[in-house]
């Protein structure tokens, strides 16, 4: 039996990590949480990887799934930068009631870049939900995930549930402390890079340059359109909030190239699996939550562009340092 977090008092936000070792612990921990919420007539969102959804539904039994919003996290959270807006939208839809959310944004097999951005998401959950009556329970597969991923979960969650015990996490750190670690330098691309500097008056040229480059990739016309929109929003943010100028870099990535150095050094042609667009400018990320809440169409701050970028891309790497602001936009080609 796993202890379910005690009911939160008014206005209290609870964000425990649930460290599970097997499916039985998973179903027990998540199932108890969901059943407790349903018994209290609280709105429940379950956003976990697709393969976990069916066992959970089955374990909750006939009728147990009623009143639950189910979401496949491998789709919603493919880009971890999208998740927080979705969780807040769910809570907003139930104003006046305590939202109970199961969010599992990190699962075995995610790339290090995805895990880092999902860890950033986890840290920002504390900032975004501070003072809201809600619980976000985050399951972590401690057998399948690397030890450093589990260590970081202890830093992003004020409490953790482990082997049936719900305890404070001594390693917990606030989002600003974690951001310093997460904003580590990005690796330089391995292959050829196209580069364009831009400033005011140059947005059309940025799009034309990116469009011409993208035509040489395997992106579908629609995904090419999405890439151009995302790049245009990022470049427009450079002009409006990032010092009035910036640099665009474009390259392709392939699975084998990062693991087989000979493929880079003129060996066999590597299989391209995606494209990356990097936008770098002199901006500061004044609000770490920018882009992580659904904006209005008419809003004019940089958050609307960032939110759109998160929706349009499969992964967005964010780096905000003293020297400037960098976005790496990833779109898969297969």
């Amino acid at each position: 039996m796993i202890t379910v977090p005690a009911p939160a008092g008014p206005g209290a936000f609870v964000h425990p990590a649930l460290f599970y070792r097997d499916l039985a612990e998973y179903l027990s921990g998540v199932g108890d949480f969901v059943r407790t919420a349903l018994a209290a007539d609280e709105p429940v969102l379950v956003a976990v990887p697709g393969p976990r959804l069916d066992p959970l539904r089955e374990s909750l039994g006939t009728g147990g799934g009623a009143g639950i919003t189910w979401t496949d996290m491998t789709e919603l959270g493919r880009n971890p930068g999208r998740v927080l807006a979705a969780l807040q939208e769910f809570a907003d839809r139930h104003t006046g009631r305590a939202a109970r959310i199961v969010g599992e944004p990190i699962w075995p097999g995610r790339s290090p870049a995805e895990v880092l951005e999902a860890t950033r998401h986890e840290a920002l959950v504390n900032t975004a939900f501070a003072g809201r009556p809600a619980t976000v329970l985050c399951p972590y597969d401690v057998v399948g995930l690397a030890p450093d991923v589990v260590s970081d979960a202890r830093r992003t969650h004020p409490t953790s549930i482990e082997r049936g015990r719900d305890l404070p996490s001594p390693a917990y750190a606030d989002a600003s402390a974690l951001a310093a670690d997460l904003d580590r330098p990005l690796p330089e691309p391995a292959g050829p890079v196209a580069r364009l500097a831009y400033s005011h008056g140059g947005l059309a040229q940025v799009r034309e340059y990116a469009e011409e480059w993208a035509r040489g990739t395997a992106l579908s016309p629609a995904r090419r359109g999405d890439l151009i929109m995302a790049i245009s929003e990022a470049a427009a943010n450079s002009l409006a909030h990032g010092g009035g100028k910036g640099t665009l870099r474009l390259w392709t990535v392939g699975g084998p190239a990062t693991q087989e150095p000979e493929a880079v050094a003129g060996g066999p042609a590597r299989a391209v699996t995606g494209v990356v667009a990097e936008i770098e400018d002199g901006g500061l990320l004044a609000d770490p939550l920018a882009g992580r809440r659904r904006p209005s169409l008419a809003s004019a701050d940089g958050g609307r562009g960032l939110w759109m970028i998160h929706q349009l891309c499969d992964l967005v790497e964010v780096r905000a340092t003293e020297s400037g602001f960098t976005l790496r936009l990833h779109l898969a080609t297969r």
Partner: protein
Amino acid sequence: MTPNTGAPAPLTALPMPDRAGARLSGSCDLDTRQALSTALGVVAGIPGPVVHLDLSAVVFLDPTAVAALVQASADLGGQGRRLLLHDAPYSLRKVVEMFPDECAALEVAA
């Protein structure tokens, strides 16, 4: 490559020869914001129950431009008239998809 310091790609509007409306050409973004505002002001002054806006020569609209179209459509609607958009580019259709409620009043010809 050196930074681009050239003039923004122009946005132009020409009257349509066969019906009440205008044909926009160019890109609608931060660099052409004022030109779009001016063009939509002219379009709003075109008489008739339906004002057509041909977007077939518009390569790109950003969300602020789409918001301006929504506003122009609402303004005409307040006068009992309609703004009908033709040949919307991908960027406009995608913005409508991402902001469905706010763009619900936009009329886009099939």
